[in-house]
Structure formats: structure tokens, C-alpha cells
């Protein structure tokens, strides 16, 4: 068994917000008819929550499920559970038109923490980060500068950002630069 490590192995940086690479995360891409009963049942059995509404994101301590597109969900789980979770989904959805793939090693996750976390994202993504426009329970797929990314709120002062593993270094540099002390925007 190889020793799996995340892209930046937990590297952290503190500016006006703290950026921390989150280590290994279990991530499963699940595609299919999101309105079909077997799909709803399989998601519920695995994550404990239903299929989210458009752009919805439901999180618990260990699991999560997020709406990626009209036919795609992102399942979050502990890294070591991902393979078993894919097997579980494949069994539950046998005979359906679906895809369940373990994407854990293709991704990197960062946490931006602090009361100014929204300012960091707002500098890099073409997204309205006002409280009224983006809140807990939502996922937003977009770009951070030139890298595709998605993010959601873990709580009021913690934004989790997901990107491709191959772009982890670039995204970490971006986030560090955006959180540079003295460059606070004072917004949100």
C-alpha cells in the first residue's frame, strides 16, 4: 500500500485570513438522474442527506453532498472511506445509468479562516460574496484567477475551496497573495 499524501501536506499561511491545505479528503463524483428514486436512496444511505437543490450543499462532520450540475453531485467523505463508498453506490445503483468515481486524488482542498475570509475569495472569483448573495448551504463553482475551483462555507468564518490537485501550488499562492496583510478591502 502506497503512502497517500495530499498535494501540499497541510501547509498553512497566515495573512489577514489563514489559508490551510486540508490534507486528504474523500471526494466522489456521482452522475446520473438526480430525480430518480434509486439515486435519492443511495445518496441518503451514504451521506445521511437527500439530494440537494440547485447549487445546494449539505455538510456533516464526516460527510457531505453538493450539487455540481443538473446531472452531477459531489460526495464528500473521509479519504479512507472513498473506495468503499464508490462500491456501495455502484451496488445501490446497479442497472441505472450512472457514474460513480473516486476523485479524491485528483483534488486539493484549502480552508480560508477568519472574519475576512470572504474578502480573499472576492478578490479572485467573479462572484458576489456579500452575505445576502452567498451563504451557508450553497456551493459555487467558478474560477480563482485562472484556475477552475469551487467553494462552500463550512461556517460563518471558514470557506473551503476545492481545486485540481495539479493546480494546488498555484491556488495556494493566489490565496496567500490575496490574504496579504494590509490589503484588506473592508467589504462584507
Amino acid at each position: 500500500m502506497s503512502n497517500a499524501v495530499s498535494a501540499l501536506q497541510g501547509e498553512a499561511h497566515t495573512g489577514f485570513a489563514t489559508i490551510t491545505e486540508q490534507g486528504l479528503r474523500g471526494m466522489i463524483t456521482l452522475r446520473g438522474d438526480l430525480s430518480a428514486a434509486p439515486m435519492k436512496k443511495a445518496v441518503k444511505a451514504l451521506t445521511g442527506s437527500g439530494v440537494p437543490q440547485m447549487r445546494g450543499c449539505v455538510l456533516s462532520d464526516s460527510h457531505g453532498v453538493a450539487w455540481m450540475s443538473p446531472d452531477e453531485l459531489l460526495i464528500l467523505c473521509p479519504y479512507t472511506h472513498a473506495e468503499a463508498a464508490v462500491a456501495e453506490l455502484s451496488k445501490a445503483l446497479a442497472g441505472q445509468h450512472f457514474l460513480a468515481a473516486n476523485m479524491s486524488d485528483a483534488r486539493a482542498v484549502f480552508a480560508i479562516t477568519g472574519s475576512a475570509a470572504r474578502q480573499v475569495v472576492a478578490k479572485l472569483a467573479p462572484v458576489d460574496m456579500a452575505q445576502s448573495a452567498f451563504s451557508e448551504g450553497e456551493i459555487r463553482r467558478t474560477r480563482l484567477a485562472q484556475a477552475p475551483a469551487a467553494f462552500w462555507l463550512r461556517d460563518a468564518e471558514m470557506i473551503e475551496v476545492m481545486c485540481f490537485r495539479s493546480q494546488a501550488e498555484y491556488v495556494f499562492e493566489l490565496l496567500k497573495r490575496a490574504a496579504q496583510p494590509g490589503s484588506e478591502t473592508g467589504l462584507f
Partner: protein
Amino acid sequence: MLVLTCPCCGVEADETELAAGGQAHIKRETVGASDDAFEEYMFMRENPKGVHFERWRHANGCGKWFHAARCTMTLEVFGTYTAQTYEPPADIRAAITAKRPGWSWGRFS
């Protein structure tokens, strides 16, 4: 900057999240088509000053293709709609007619 609401995920996406896919509602010609029909499909495009129909993809977003109706002169957006259609839906046409009475584009008006 051009802002289009993606009908697949509801996001008001600015141009930097989108990839342009060129003219909409082109009928594909294939094996057995006449040279004239194939030339029309392959090379001939509308180039209007005014009402235009285009394909866009929410590339840095939900990843889906969709259609948009807009004015090339003012950048006004009349509406966005599903990619799974061969022609602009009635509500989009009505929205254009309200703003640009007498418009026509290709085989639509």
C-alpha cells in the same frame, strides 16, 4: 462586461466564467448533403448588427451548454434558454419582439 444567467445552474455568470460557442441553431449537414448545403453549414454565418442567437458554455461553472439571445450592438441580453432545442422558444422571441419590433434572424422572426 457581458453577463448571462446560466439556465442550467441559475448563476449570473460574467464573461470570464463562460466559453463562447459561436452561432446557434445551425443545422448539421452530413453524408449525402449537396455541396451547397454543406458549404452553408460549414462556412456561412449570420453576422448581424442587432439581435443574435449564440451558444455558450458555463465552462468555469456547471460545465453545461446553453443558448443566449442578445443584441450585438448594445450587449443587451434578451434571455438565455436550454441547449436542447432547435429554435428559440416562444418566450424568448416575445421578449425580443417587445424590445426590437420587426426583428428577423436567419429563418426566425
